[in-house]
């Protein structure tokens, strides 16, 4: 069974803390994504990576950074957490278009982050 796992389901942090959210996929996918999900706003792309050590900004990258040192792992970093970063964070992965032209994304269970 293919899987995308996220390190925590629930996380509570204080303002100003550095926060790491980890995502691991076992499907040998090239593409990995971080989204945040907020009521009424749907899913918004923060960053994505199409290869090891490669990254591209999504629609809302401010206040976030990412790291991809290994193909299977994609980390989202909040350098200094703020209350407006309280949200549900979803990680996803997908294959290359030449392998899967339909670009199906596979999602992890999500991390609900609360910043106090």
């Amino acid at each position, binding site marked *: 069974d293919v899987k*995308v796992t996220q390190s925590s*389901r629930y996380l509570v942090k204080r303002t100003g803390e550095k926060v790491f959210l980890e995502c691991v996929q076992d499907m040998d996918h*090239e*593409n990995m994504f971080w989204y945040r999900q907020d009521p*009424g*706003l*749907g*899913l918004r792309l923060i960053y*994505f990576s*199409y*290869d090891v050590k490669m990254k*591209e900004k999504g629609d809302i990258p401010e206040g976030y950074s990412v790291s991809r040192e290994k193909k299977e792992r994609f980390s989202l970093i909040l350098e200094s957490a703020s209350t407006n970063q309280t949200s549900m964070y*979803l990680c*996803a992965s997908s294959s*290359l*278009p030449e392998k899967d*032209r*339909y*670009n*199906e*994304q*596979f*999602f*992890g*269970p*999500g991390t*609900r982050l609360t910043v106090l």
Partner: protein
Amino acid sequence: AQSVTQLDSHVSVSEGTPVLLRCNYSSSYSPSLFWYVQHPNKGLQLLLKYTSAATLVKGINGFEAEFKKSETSFHLTKPSAHMSDAAEYFCVVSDSGSKTSYDKVIFGPGTSLSVIP
């Protein structure tokens, strides 16, 4: 530019009655289309995807969607709702014509489905 419109933010049906969740899209290329479901505090699960092999697509849990190019629609249906169908549903469009490693995927805002006993 691609976009997705989900015409209803919330739909409520009685158990055993049909479900219709509406989705319209715009795409410059030949699109890939998906429906995902999200149960409370869970990740997104793929219900079905349009692969261009057939306009009527069957998915899991009895859901279907019909691709209508002339109407640029991809509505999701189920003949008989079950209590376990209560969830958030997302229509998604992806440009399957691009040759780049990343194809921008656009999520609709979601439709919340309630099922009344």
